[in-house]
């Protein structure tokens, strides 16, 4: 608003003079490719992760386009049935294990978490680097299966199909096993960081809500992921040594495998979505210029979600021959997870109420998140209901539902977070107008792709179908069309973001007016994060912030308490 005389004092930049900030910025100091490959700096590891997971997203996305193109017509369109089966398997495995699970925590979280906490680094920087290398190895194993005969089990690896089929099941399961440990180490690192590296004054309830979300995620990463590890190991010995625990021909129980698998994979769904919800809490508050509404409810709902996520895995198995008692219990518990989610959504609405809403790109994604995740969450009610799930199970309704949650929720939130922290990470502003157009294209393309799938799913179109009856053709046409629109949107986003790296305007320290600690230091942050211990205040109190036209960013009105 009114430009005060407040100049950018050193305290505004975490104790850094601007030239100093420039020379010590983590992107350029230290120099050399090796300094990146052996870096222990959480910010650089975050960027390494970002590059990798975006590559994975690109590959997974290309598979998705191939799948949608194949489904344009019944029967063979571009590939044969076996290739199609490998495509959707790898699409699922890459998107889930290589992209979404590490996406927000390992890429954005690694960058933002210590900064938001006011710490110099994560607790175990070397372990952090190691989990990135584990990701690389795991990714290599996973993608290796593509050239080594392909895996065609679907990402769920159900036995006995997965023990009988030919193809590179061992390499992909080995990949998942290794990626699991990468995920465990990230979560473990964050838990210790949040517990032990909080600076003086950073009490639990002064922590930004993003950290609460990541904390809940880390709990699940540490407690659930080892189970997929042992499941994958058992699958490998089942294939190589004829172990027989899951093989009905040897007296084993294939339904037991499903219990093993979903004990991890349901919490994994929350490993994917919880950080997304956490980003939303930041963005709704900052872009409404208003204190987040109901801080404690949002914080606790993250932890409650993390715990509840362990109690509902059986809803993936309603028609599988699971006992009626288990179906009863799991269905009842499943509905309980919608409550903490609803709490968050209503609290965000209340945050917007009477705010001063600034419709920058991150906020546009947040608004589309409300729409898409709203649909994703509400369609979960259909699938939690026993009788209705019997009809909808393993149809495109399920496909559409989890894409609305995983894509409409997590990927949209990831894009929101990427746009939110982009100026902080790289010190460059992207083109705001193109940002808005990109968000709109994604929104339209996404709905076109997946709303059609709700309809055909309700009509009975089963998932993982290479061929289908004519009745569903029209919906597949719409869906495939939408997927191409989305692809255009993603290329646009990639274009202007890359452009901003080269030609973008210099970003101010605080372009959005956030009050969490990362906005108190220069963009990009200096190598050592905070020169002096940061002063911790209420992260959602924006009353001290003012717009400064000269730097096109926000400044803090008063010099802060610390010397």
């Amino acid at each position: 608003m009114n430009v005060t005389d407040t100049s950018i004092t050193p305290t505004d930049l975490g104790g850094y003079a601007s030239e100093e900030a420039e020379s010590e910025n983590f992107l350029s100091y230290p120099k050399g490719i090796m300094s990146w490959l052996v870096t222990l700096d959480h910010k650089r590891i975050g960027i390494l992760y970002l590059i990798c997971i975006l590559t994975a997203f690109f590959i997974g996305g290309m598979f998705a386009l191939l799948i949608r193109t194949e489904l344009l017509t019944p029967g063979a369109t571009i590939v044969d049935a076996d290739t199609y089966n490998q495509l959707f398997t790898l699409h699922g495995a890459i998107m889930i294990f290589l992209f979404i699970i590490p996406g927000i925590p390992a890429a954005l979280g690694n960058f933002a978490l210590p900064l938001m906490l006011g710490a110099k680094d994560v607790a175990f920087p070397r372990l952090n680097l190691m989990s990135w290398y584990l990701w690389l190895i795991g990714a290599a194993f996973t993608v290796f299966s593509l050239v080594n005969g392909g895996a065609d089990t679907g990402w769920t690896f159900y036995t006995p199909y997965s023990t009988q089929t030919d193809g590179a099941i061992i390499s992909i399961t080995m990949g998942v096993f290794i990626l699991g440990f990468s995920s465990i180490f990230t979560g473990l690192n964050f838990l210790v960081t949040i517990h032990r590296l909080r600076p003086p004054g950073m009490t639990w309830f002064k922590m930004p809500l993003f950290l609460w979300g990541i904390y809940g995620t880390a709990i699940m990463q540490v407690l659930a992921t080892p189970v997929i590890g042992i499941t994958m190991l058992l699958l490998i010995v089942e294939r190589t040594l004829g172990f027989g625990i899951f093989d009905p021909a040897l007296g084993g129980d294939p339904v037991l495998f499903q219990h093993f698998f979903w004990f991890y994979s349901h919490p994994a769904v929350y490993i994917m979505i919880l950080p997304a919800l956490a980003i939303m809490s930041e963005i709704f508050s900052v872009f409404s210029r208003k204190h987040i509404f109901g801080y404690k409810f949002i914080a606790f709902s993250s932890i409650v979600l993390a715990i509840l996520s362990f109690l509902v895995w059986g809803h993936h198995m309603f028609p599988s021959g699971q006992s009626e008692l288990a179906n009863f219990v799991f269905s009842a518990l499943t509905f309980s997870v919608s409550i903490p989610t609803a709490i968050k959504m209503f609290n965000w609405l209340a945050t917007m109420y009477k705010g001063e809403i600034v419709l920058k790109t991150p906020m546009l994604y947040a608004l589309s998140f409300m729409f898409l995740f709203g649909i994703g969450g509400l369609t979960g009610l259909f699938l939690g209901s026993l009788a209705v799930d019997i009809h909808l199970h393993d149809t495109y309704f399920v496909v559409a539902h989890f894409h609305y949650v995983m894509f409409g929720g997590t990927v949209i939130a990831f894009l929101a977070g990427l746009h939110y922290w982009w100026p902080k990470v790289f010190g460059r502003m992207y083109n705001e107008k193109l940002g808005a157009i990109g968000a709109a294209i994604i929104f339209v393309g996404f709905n076109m792709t997946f709303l059609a799938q709700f309809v055909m799913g309700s009509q009975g179109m089963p998932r993982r179908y290479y061929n289908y009856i004519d009745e569903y053709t029209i919906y597949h046409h719409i869906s495939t069309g939408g997927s191409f629109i989305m692809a255009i949107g993603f290329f646009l986003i990639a274009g202007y973001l890359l452009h901003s790296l080269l030609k973008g305007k210099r970003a101010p320290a605080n372009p959005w007016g956030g009050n969490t600690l990362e906005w108190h230091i220069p963009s990009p942050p200096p190598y050592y994060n905070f020169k002096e211990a940061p002063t911790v205040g209420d992260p959602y109190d924006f009353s001290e912030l003012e717009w400064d036209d000269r730097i096109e960013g926000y400044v803090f009105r008063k010099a802060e308490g610390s010397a």
Partner: protein
Amino acid sequence: MSHGHDSEQVGHIVPLWLLFGVFFALIILTALTVWTATQIDLGAFNIWLALVIAGVKATLVALFFMHLIWDKPYNGLVLAFSFMFVILFLGISLMDTAENMPDMYEGPAPAVATE
């Protein structure tokens, strides 16, 4: 080099008598569990007895050998939580499979071809 109880001291020093005491208790409990399992027939209760003894042994190891009793409470909580989740996992899987798994081959189960 400070050996006292000043702030620089990290970790708790366990007296030797306690280490040996715990060790002998563990050995005695091992003997006890072998004896109860092989000599006393309590039917279905045997397994619970064995598990209780194992639980006591594990608690001794965790509390004294692993310093949990002097440690930050969070670390103990982590262990307790992990056991809770194991029990949850076992419990629910068991609840489900107990209902239908016995049917698997005690009736004329359908045959399955192998490859």
